[in-house]
Every structure is written in C-alpha cells, then in structure tokens.
C-alpha cells in the first residue's frame, strides 16, 4: 500500500502536500464531488446543523472553562463573575447555555427525520446505532454541564440522577457512592463532572467521525427512501448542498441569537440562580426541557427499578429499531398507515414532555402512564406487526422520475460525463 498519491490539484503547494497526505483529495471526494441524492428536503440540513452546534459548544465551552472554578465553595460565584465581570462573559455563557437547547432541538428533529424517512433501515443500521450512541453521549454531557454552575437545580438534579443508579439490585448503593466519590453529591462529584464535561464533547467528535464515515459508505437516504440508481439521481455535494446547508445554518443561528439576546433564561429554571443548598430541596425539581419526556417515563412507573429501567429502555429501544420495523419500505410517504402513526408517536412524546414538567399528581399521572405505555407499544408491538399488515403505495422507479416528470435530462453539473443506465 505504500506509495505517493497522484494528486490532480494544479496549485503546487496543495499538490505537494496532497501527494504526501491526500487530505485535499479526501475533502474533494467526500465533500466536493460526493454524489448526493438530488431530492433532499430541508430535513437533511439537520445533521450539518448539529455539527455546527457541536463546534460552537466546544469553542464557547473552552472559553467558559478559562474562567470557571470547579469547587463547591467557588463554582457558583465563578459563574456569576463570568456573567458580570468577564468581558463578554454573559454572551459566551448565554450562547453555551442556550446552545445546549439548540443542539437538542436540532438532534431531535434529526432523529425524527430518520424515523419518518426510514433512514435506520438496511444498510444504515450501524449509522443509526452510532447516532444513538451520540445521543447518549450528548445527554451525559448536558447533564454534567448543568451541574457545574452549582445552583439549586444543579445540585438536586445531580442528586436525583445519580441516585437512579441506586435502583440497581445489590450493587446500586455502591455504584452511587462511587459516582459521588463520597456520601453525597459534593466537591469530588463536581470535580469529576467538570473533567468529564470537558472530555465528552471530544469523544462526541470522535464518534461523529465514525457516524459520518459510515454515512459516506452507505450514502444518504432521501425523502423517497429509495436507493440511488444512476448518477442522474445525484448532485455533487458542493455547491448544491453546501449552499443548501448554509441557508439552514443562517436560519439556525438567527434563532439561536434571538434566544441569546431576547430570552436568554426562557428555557432555564430560576432556581438555578440560587446557590446549591444540600439541606433544602426546591419545591419542584425538574430537569432541562430536553430530558422531560424521559423524566415523565421515570415517574410514571410506581416502582424504583421499573421506572429506571423503562427510562433507559426508552432510548435503548432505538438501538434495535432497525430490526423492530419489519416493513421493507423506508419512507413514510409510501406507508399510508405508518404515516399517521408516526404523528401519534410525536404527540405522545410531546405529551410526555408536558407531563414531565408538571408535578406527578392527579390527571398528569394518568396521562403519563398512558403515554409511556403507548411509547413502548409503538416500538415493540405496532412496528413489528404493521410491517406485515400494511400495504405500501407503489414506489417510484427512481429518484429522477418523480422529480422530473418526463424521464429527466441530465441536470447541470450532475455527473455529466458518465453514461446513464445500469439500474
């Protein structure tokens, strides 16, 4: 395998580097000419948006860490100092704080896209599973980040979430003590959370690399859910999708900026501006909005181990989704029944989120239980059977057909030299 790469770049400096380390050829191949289905809608922006969010979170996080002190006596004040004294500290913190929400919104829509268009089905199962790993890593990162300001919600959130592990039979309490590094959430806990909160985003970057590598092996799915059949079905990634992604990025950044500048604390909880007090739990402990549906599932089960298992199970079920869904058709467009049921699932999850935001009393308990049951019913019962019962609509012959009604001539720039054909 040894040997220099034969580079086509005319620029002598780029050519020299590329001959020895073909990164330019790689970028050109994977992001320049990369053949991409030509019928993407804006749902296909969200992966790129998540990458942008991740990068902004890492950059703002690094600058926050320059002024943050991970010590129980100083953490809260160091955050207040960032808000009041550090130049633009308020801006950096609000971007980071609201960035977590923006990141989750984008990734939840990204997951919805996968569910709606069947992107998890063969051959993209591993790509999907790597995605679920990314989701779990994001959740761990966000949770530990929320502990760092050491406000009341930080402290009690950390207490409640770490105590989840006490539900594990026999070794549970030992695990919790180990997580804490003591007998309650305290300085050792804060120190390790800071260390891990700094580490995990870089782990996410590594796993993201695998996610994208897997994507570039299978190629992207598309709104029709049928495979690319000929070069006519594709466009080079650049400039078509670099530009389409840029449009999305602009809108995304505008919304993020609107949150930061006009409603910086809208998604947060006031109690986190009260310093942590290990002796008094706030009246209602709620997690950040993006954890609410899972929190609702936890509370819907009147049994400690049961609730914890269901909560983790609600995410783990996504790992086996490619095998639970038995329908050979990917896109919801051609699945008349599933197209309705997926909206039921969306409403179900939104309702769970609402339940999670309310104290577990009265009607909320009932709604929570119904929604939790439906959530699992959808994945474990509906999907396996529906694939067998549902009659899908006829699939189009190729991507080009429905896009260009009469057969379709080659589009400018779309792999012009290649002969068409080979179905």
């Amino acid at each position, binding site marked *: 395998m040894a040997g220099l790469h034969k580079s086509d770049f005319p620029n002598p400096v780029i050519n020299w580097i590329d001959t020895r380390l073909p990164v330019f050829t790689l970028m050109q191949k994977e992001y320049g000419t990369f053949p991409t289905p030509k019928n993407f809608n804006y749902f296909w922006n969200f992966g790129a948006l998540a990458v942008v969010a991740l990068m902004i979170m890492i*950059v*703002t996080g690094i*600058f926050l860490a*320059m*002024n943050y002190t991970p010590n129980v006596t100083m953490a809260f004040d160091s955050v207040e*100092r960032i808000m*009041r*004294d*550090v*130049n*633009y*500290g308020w*801006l*950096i913190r609000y971007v980071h704080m609201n960035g977590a929400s923006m990141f989750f919104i984008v990734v939840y829509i990204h997951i919805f896209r996968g569910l709606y268009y069947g992107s998890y089905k063969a051959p993209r199962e591993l790509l999907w599973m790597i995605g679920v790993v990314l989701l779990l890593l994001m959740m761990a990162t966000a949770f530990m980040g929320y502990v760092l300001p050491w406000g009341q919600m930080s402290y009690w959130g950390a207490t409640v979430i770490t105590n989840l592990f006490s539900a594990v039979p026999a070794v549970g309490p030992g695990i919790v003590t180990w997580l804490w590094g003591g007998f309650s959430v305290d300085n050792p806990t804060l120190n390790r959370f800071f260390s891990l909160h700094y580490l995990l985003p870089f782990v996410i970057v590594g796993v993201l690399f695998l996610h994208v590598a897997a994507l570039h092996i299978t190629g992207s799915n598309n709104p029709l859910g049928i495979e690319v059949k000929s070069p006519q079905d594709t466009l080079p990634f650049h400039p078509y999708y670099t530009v389409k992604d*840029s449009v999305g990025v602009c809108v995304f950044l505008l919304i993020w900026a609107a949150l930061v500048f006009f409603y910086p604390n809208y998604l947060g909880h006031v109690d986190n501006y009260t310093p942590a007090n290990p002796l008094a739990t706030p009246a209602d402990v709620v997690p950040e909005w993006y954890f609410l549906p899972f929190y609702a599932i936890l509370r819907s089960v009147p049994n400690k181990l049961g609730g914890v298992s269901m909560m983790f199970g609600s995410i783990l079920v996504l790992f086996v989704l490619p095998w639970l869904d038995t329908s050979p058709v990917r896109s919801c467009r051609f699945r008349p029944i599933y197209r309705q049921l997926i909206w039921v699932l969306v409403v179900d999850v939104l309702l769970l989120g609402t339940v999670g935001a309310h104290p577990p009393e009265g009607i909320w308990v009932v709604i929570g239980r119904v929604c939790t049951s439906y959530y699992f019913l959808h994945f474990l019962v509906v999907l396996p059977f529906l694939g067998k019962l549902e009659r899908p609509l006829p699939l189009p012959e190729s991507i080009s057909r429905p896009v260009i009604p009469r057969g379709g001539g080659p589009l400018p720039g779309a792999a012009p030299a290649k002969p068409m054909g080979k179905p």
Partner: protein
Amino acid sequence: MADTVTVPPVGHVTEAPRRDLLKLVTVASAAIGAGAIAWPLIDSMNPSQDVLALSATEVDLTPIAEGSGITVLWRGKPIFVRHRTPEEIKSAEDVPLNQLIEPQPDSQRVKPGHTQWIIVIGICTHLGCVPLGNKPTDPRGEWGGWFCPCHGSQYDTSGRVRHGPAPLNLNLPPYAFETDTKIKIG
C-alpha cells in the same frame, strides 16, 4: 446605482463574473461574521472588570527605615517602595545623563518634596525577574540600587538600568502621596 451599471448582453458570458461576485460577497460576509464572533471570545481573555477594580493599593510608609525598602503587591506585581539615604539621593541626582542606558533625570522618577521615596515596579525589564536590593543586606550591584539575579542586570538608586542585559529603567507605577507617610498606588 443601477443605472450607472452598463448592462451586458444576456447570455453565458455574464455568468462567471456574477458568480465570482456572489462568491466574494458570501465569503466576505462569512469572514465578517466569524470576526464578529471571534472578538468577544478574544476579549474575554483580557483582564475582567473585577481584576481591573482591584487596581489600587495603599501603603503606609512609617515602618520603612532609611536605607531599606519593602515590596508590596499591586495588580499581582511586586512594587518596590524604598526609603533612600541622603547619599543615595545625591548619587542618583548627580549622575550625568550621558552615562545612562536610558537617560532620565532622578527628578522625573520621584515626586517633588518626597525625593527620599523611590517607588518602582520591581520587575526587571530584561525578562521579568524580581531584582534584589530592598534589604540593605541584599546584593545591590555596583550602583547601589538593585541587582537582578537572573542575568546580572544592575540598577541605580533611582531604579535606572546601569548595566545590561536589561534595556530599560525599572518602570514607575502610577501613585500619589495621600499624606506624607501614606501613598496610594494605582
């Protein structure tokens, strides 16, 4: 604006410059945006408001005996406050300026009426060590002021550099006499 532009004939010829302009505008606005985002991040590494607020230090001069000095901390830096003997004052005032590496009369380095007090930032102008010489028992160098142990720079009783490698005199902090026996630095 529009009417000053000659409209070229429609056709493929116009495509390339139009595209170039679009690219240029896009890349330029992205660059401006990136710069606008970079600045708050860079500025956040400058001294923060609380650090700037900590910038004044008061020093009581009464305990400092003639011939010796003390070191106080101001903005994280050592400040030498030294009580000069009449001989030290005289030697500082009498040096011909052409013998100095950075010529500066002693009168510009002390406050009028308080010539016995020389107050300098105790950071060697070579590479930032703290010179010795506040205590009478310290090595003070050939010119009786301060001696830097790092690379051998020597300063006189006015804090002026007399022997390299340091290129400049010891810097003066901003300060004022609040009373005859009390100064406020910063």
